[in-house]
């Protein structure tokens, strides 16, 4: 058989690939059987294979409730905010950093701006708590000192899309600005020189040279982000919001919702149905938007 011949001929290479391949099979492909639970009434005693089939009942249960709409909306809405604000501010930062001539200022600013990327969401949660805490938070203390009433920020779901977006930008703007900066430094200096000769101000140079030439990078990054719009960042949201139920209406995403169904309710079937829904929607959007992105920039190694 040709496949056996190929493996024997390159046996050492396939041996090298074996651990990785084994990992993929065990940790990425085998658990896909879990999707079957979406169609079963899972009981721990019966295991996966013993639990009985219930067809689409689990999905009916999920879609007939209000939850699916709220959770989907939150996921898509929050991710949308993150993409727009995150990439937008990162682009601004990259353009601005590129304009800064003082090397020291630029280096320090870049280091500080990139720093939040390195800490975990739990630490971020702690920092958020230090600011928004009702009794001792920095924000409330500032309000009190200025004669205004402190608010219980953790009980106001309405502000949290904004809060989470702010946190997201804080954490990732530096990361994305690096990508934009790399693209900007790739722009040939000749464009700027000829523009300068023609009398363009630096501001005009930015608008007419820098931005159009890195437009592709921005679009590709945005498309990739949109592709994953059905996947909420569990680490972020559960880390920061945790089990603060009053905030669920505006912050609960598919990932946290299904996590709670699994771990706190012990409802494997419900959780699995939601995750199947997410995986299918996610697959569709990722394939579509990755394909569009690939059309725009064939060279990008993001795929």
């Amino acid at each position, binding site marked *: 058989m040709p496949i056996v011949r190929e493996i024997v001929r390159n046996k050492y290479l396939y041996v090298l690939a074996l651990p990785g391949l084994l990992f993929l099979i065990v940790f990425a492909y*085998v658990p896909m059987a879990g*999707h079957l639970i979406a169609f079963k009434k899972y009981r721990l005693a019966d295991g996966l294979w013993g639990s009985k089939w219930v067809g689409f009942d689990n999905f009916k249960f999920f879609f007939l409730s209000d939850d699916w709409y709220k959770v989907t909306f939150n996921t898509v809405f929050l991710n949308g905010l993150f993409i727009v604000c995150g990439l937008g501010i990162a682009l601004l930062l990259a353009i*601005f950093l590129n304009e*800064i001539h003082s090397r020291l200022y630029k280096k320090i600013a870049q280091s500080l701006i990139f720093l939040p990327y390195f800490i975990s*969401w739990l630490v971020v949660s702690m*920092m958020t708590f230090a600011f928004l*805490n009702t009794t001792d938070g920095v924000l409330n203390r500032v309000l009190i000192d200025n004669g205004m009433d402190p608010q219980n920020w953790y009980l106001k779901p309405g502000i949290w899309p904004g809060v989470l977006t702010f946190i997201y930008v804080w954490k990732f703007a530096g990361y994305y600005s690096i990508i934009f900066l790399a693209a900007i430094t790739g722009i040939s200096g000749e464009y700027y020189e000829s523009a300068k000769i023609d009398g363009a101000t630096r501001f005009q140079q930015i608008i007419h040279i820098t931005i159009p030439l890195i437009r592709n990078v921005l679009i590709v990054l945005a498309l990739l982000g949109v592709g994953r719009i059905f996947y909420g960042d569990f680490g972020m949201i559960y880390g920061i919001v945790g089990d603060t139920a009053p905030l669920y209406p505006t912050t609960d995403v598919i990932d946290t919702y299904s996590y709670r169904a699994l771990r706190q309710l012990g409802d494997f079937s419900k959780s699995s149905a939601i995750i199947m829904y*997410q995986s299918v929607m996610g697959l569709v959007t990722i394939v579509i938007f990755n394909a569009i992105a690939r059309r725009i920039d064939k060279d990008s190694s993001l795929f």
Partner: protein
Amino acid sequence: MESSITQAPSGKLGRAGKAMKIKADRSPSERAFVGFIYAFTGLFALVCLLPFWIVAINSFADESAIKRYGYQLIPRIFSTGAYEFLFRGKQVASSYMVSTTVTVAGTVLAVLITAMYAYVLAHPKVKYRNVLSFLTYFTMIFGAGLVGFYILIANWLHLKDTLWALILPYLLNPFFAFIMVSFFRTLPYEINEAATVDGANDLRIFFGIILPISKPVIATVGLFYALQYWNDFFLALLFIDDYKLHPLQIMIRQLISNINIGAYVGGSQTNYGQPLPTYSVQLATVCVTIGPIFLLYPFIQRYFVKGITIGALKG
């Protein structure tokens, strides 16, 4: 990026002369624009720094000061009580052990497995490398989902409450694998051919020749993995109930949600009159957790910048 201005005049004025020349070139509105740019980036950088400052400085604040004045920019009363309490207990030591072990073991294993795998994906002789590539890529766009993952680790592999549950799931990250594949593709195949002529088999070529010259990408991917392992709390959240196996991140979470801090941290109550340093202990734990990252940051920053640039722009 910068136009003719970068040709710095090599005369006596040098750098200062260049700055003067730039200033002179600019109209008032341009200078306002530049001023705005400096202000914006400076402000953003400060906002990035501020939470770190608050956390760090308040971990050295006396608990009573925090209770009376809240989290302050400059605490009124300093004390190392939080750290004393923290280090007298046993929990932080065991959490540190867990986090460090998982990070070191995980990173070493992950880099090894990823490098071996990526090398094969990039090797011209391998006929099925496109199949493997696709199989790897597919896992990035369609996941197994939380339930299958949980059942696999907890029920089928029986890894609940073990260190392996914290190490194994992240051993091959497709994104990092593709970064290494890109790198290996840049290596000239002549190296392999020359080594084969000398009688080396593929294993010797990989371990003896390829790996040593791949140090940059190994360092970069290694750091990415290390960061992932150190910062992760998802795996421990799902699979670790035994507090002796709590990594640092989960310890932080326990401190936030747990009222019984005294018992958890394991510090003995030597002074019953004193209040439990709740808030400052939380912050001290955070500082202890991000301490290593802070210390290593100047050295590792450029590896991450390089890695991100390569990963995103194939450049």
